[in-house]
């Protein structure tokens, strides 16, 4: 029974389920020592409209029909792309033809090696594919370099792109993501309160009779341990989630983050983890990393390179976090002997943090607005 179903299903999907999408081609450029490697994915449907592929006019395009037109496809594509490196034209070598599938159907994949005078530093690309009959066609250009990938768009209104190779674009996007990381930690009250709750007791030591001030060295050691553990943990999950290796439901992550703030704060009032606060930082840091990843999944971040986004964003989060630590820990260290710090800031502050975070937790878990 089920085997028959599979066979029927496979017949049905011999041509993969195709999305309805406006026309795009995907042009990927990798600069090398004496030129460029270019991969160009062009939809068979668009090639049919441009030069005709369906020789027997039965409405189905076969591999045989595409192979017959291989030279025509390569010539047509070549006439619609001009590559200049540092002011001199690059010449394309022969193209090889393969097939790939995108969301909207089958594509011809053309692989070229463009020969340029030297290792290109500045590229000028002029793109003219299909604009003559499809005014909404777009060419999606990816420039792949060791330092990162840039995504640019060709349209009928914007048929040329100039690209500075080398340090340029990749670094710029790293910087943008760095800024976004700093901003995210500073505006993310839940992340900050979690860190503060863990750092409040870093300048003190607790025994059966209560809290006692410690010296500079143990205070710094406790701070470094907590911050490093938190950083390591959220970097791990941020990276895993950003590359799509794991996926966690946003609502439970957000609830879990709020719960982590509650527990970290309560731990100051009723200490369970005294010297093991770095363990708390590590364990819950894993959750916070998923929270950071939701920023990288936002639509505007998709363009550009994931690696530079990840590096830049994570570095930004760490910078923002270190700035907060650098502002807080010296003050705490100076105030650690006072009643004000030991009672009001540490104990009452922790209760306050726990209360605020409990409200968040309930809101997030039950979709409430209190």
């Amino acid at each position, binding site marked *: 029974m089920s085997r028959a179903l599979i066979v029927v299903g496979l017949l049905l999907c011999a*041509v993969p389920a195709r999305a309805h999408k406006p026309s795009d081609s995907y042009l990927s450029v990798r600069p090398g020592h004496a030129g460029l490697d270019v991969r160009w994915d062009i939809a068979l449907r668009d090639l049919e409209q441009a030069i005709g592929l369906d020789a027997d006019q039965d409405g189905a395009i*076969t591999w045989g029909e595409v192979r017959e037109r291989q030279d025509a496809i390569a010539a047509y594509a070549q006439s619609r792309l001009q590559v200049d490196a540092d002011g001199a034209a690059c010449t394309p070598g022969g193209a090889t033809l393969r097939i790939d599938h995108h969301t909207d159907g089958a594509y011809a994949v053309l692989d070229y090696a463009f020969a340029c005078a030297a290792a290109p530093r500045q590229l000028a690309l002029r793109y003219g594919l299909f604009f003559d009959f499809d005014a*909404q066609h*777009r060419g999606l250009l990816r420039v792949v370099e060791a330092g990162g990938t840039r995504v640019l768009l060709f349209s009928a209104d914007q048929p040329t792109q100039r690209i500075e190779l080398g340090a340029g674009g990749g670094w710029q996007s790293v910087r943008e993501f760095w800024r976004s990381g700093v901003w995210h930690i500073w505006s993310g009250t839940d992340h900050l309160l979690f860190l503060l709750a863990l750092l409040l007791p870093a300048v003190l030591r607790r025994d059966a009779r209560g809290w006692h001030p410690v010296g500079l060295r143990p205070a710094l050691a406790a701070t470094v341990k907590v911050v490093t553990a938190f950083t390591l943990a959220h970097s791990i999950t941020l990276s895993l989630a950003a590359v799509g290796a794991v996926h966690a439901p*946003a609502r439970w992550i957000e609830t879990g983050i709020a719960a982590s703030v509650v527990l970290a704060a309560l731990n100051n009032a009723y200490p369970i983890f005294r010297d093991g606060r770095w363990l708390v930082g590590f364990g819950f840091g894993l959750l916070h990393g998923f929270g950071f990843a*939701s920023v990288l999944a936002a639509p505007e971040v998709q363009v550009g390179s994931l690696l530079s986004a990840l590096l830049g964003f994570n570095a930004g989060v760490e910078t923002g976090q270190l700035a907060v630590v650098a502002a807080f820990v010296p003050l705490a260290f100076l105030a650690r002997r006072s009643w004000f710090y030991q009672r009001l800031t540490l104990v009452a502050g922790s209760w306050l943090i726990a209360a605020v975070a409990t409200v968040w937790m309930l809101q997030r878990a039950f*979709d409430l607005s209190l």
Partner: protein
Amino acid sequence: MRRCAIHAAAALVVLLCAAPGRAEPYVPGDDAAVLERLPLAPLDASARRQRELRAELAARPDDLDRAAQLAWLYIRSGRATADPRFYGYAQGVLAPWWHERAAPLPVLVLRATIRQHDHDFAAALDDLAAALRADPTNAQAWLTQAVVQQVRGDYAAARASCLQVLQVASPLVGVICISGVDSLTGNGAASYAALARALQRAPEADPATRIWGLTALAEMAVRLGDAVQAEVHFQAALALGQSDDYLRGAYADFLLDQDRPDAVRALLAGATQSDGLLLRLAIAEARLHAPEAAAHVQMLRERFAAARQRGDRVHRREEARFALLLGDTRAALGLARDNWAVQREAWDARLLLEAAQAAGDPAVAAPVLAFLREHHTEDATLRRVAAGLDERPR
């Protein structure tokens, strides 16, 4: 047990079908392997006519009559197949006039239709106003204008345009237009009765117009809270036998609200081409805990990513609904809010209400509630969703 096996088999098929998207490029081993099926067979009458006109236009691209004729053929194919490439072709044919502000009349109406499809509503309304200054009896222009004004929530203007449609188009088209606006502005029962009468009086109307009218009637019944009549009208529209994506989408939404995901799965089986229908199918499958849901969600994820890459912004409504399905409330709220700034149909209102509720931020939905109050909107579904929002303690 057997049900389980069928589910597993279906999941396997979906996975296998989806697999080529992630594989490396390859050289097919068999010349007979079919790689692509064209939306219109080349020998299809309309495809043949399109080719003839294209060939003639290649010699004389500025032949306005032929260009307009070909552009309408493309738009018709685009509507019939729900394939956006045809709108790009239509725009391409109009290239000699596209950037002219004072373009010739046929180009103005075509350009407005294409811009409406791209959700560039303000530019579409400019073109229509210019077209109607040149030709105040242009039924197509009045109707398109009424539709755009209604989508934007400008009901007074839409009603005025519909009154003009009544003068220059068939009575059924006029009544569909005006009852649609009236039913959204506090005259639900009377509009429903008027449209039902108009449909009875026009049994000879072409199937496409009847489907449009019956779908509108069914949606009015839904808004009035009459699920029994809604089902009758949806079935009558489906019985006309033409594939209509809007109808199937509206019926699927009705079934989902009636908690009948099984029926949605049957209705939309294999409807994976259109993002909107695939989304409803995935919602139904998720509710049934069907194994295909995961693969369909993945397909949608890839498609929205592909649309974003090319800079498209016409999918906000679907994307907001998709984000709600995934439980990504922050993204849903942002998308629903951006979407509400552009369009104001019932679904746009509902998504912002639902996203605000999911995000625990009812204040964001205040403009929607104010809009619904201002227009005396009668809509059982919206009332239910809005009530859920109001009951939250603040």
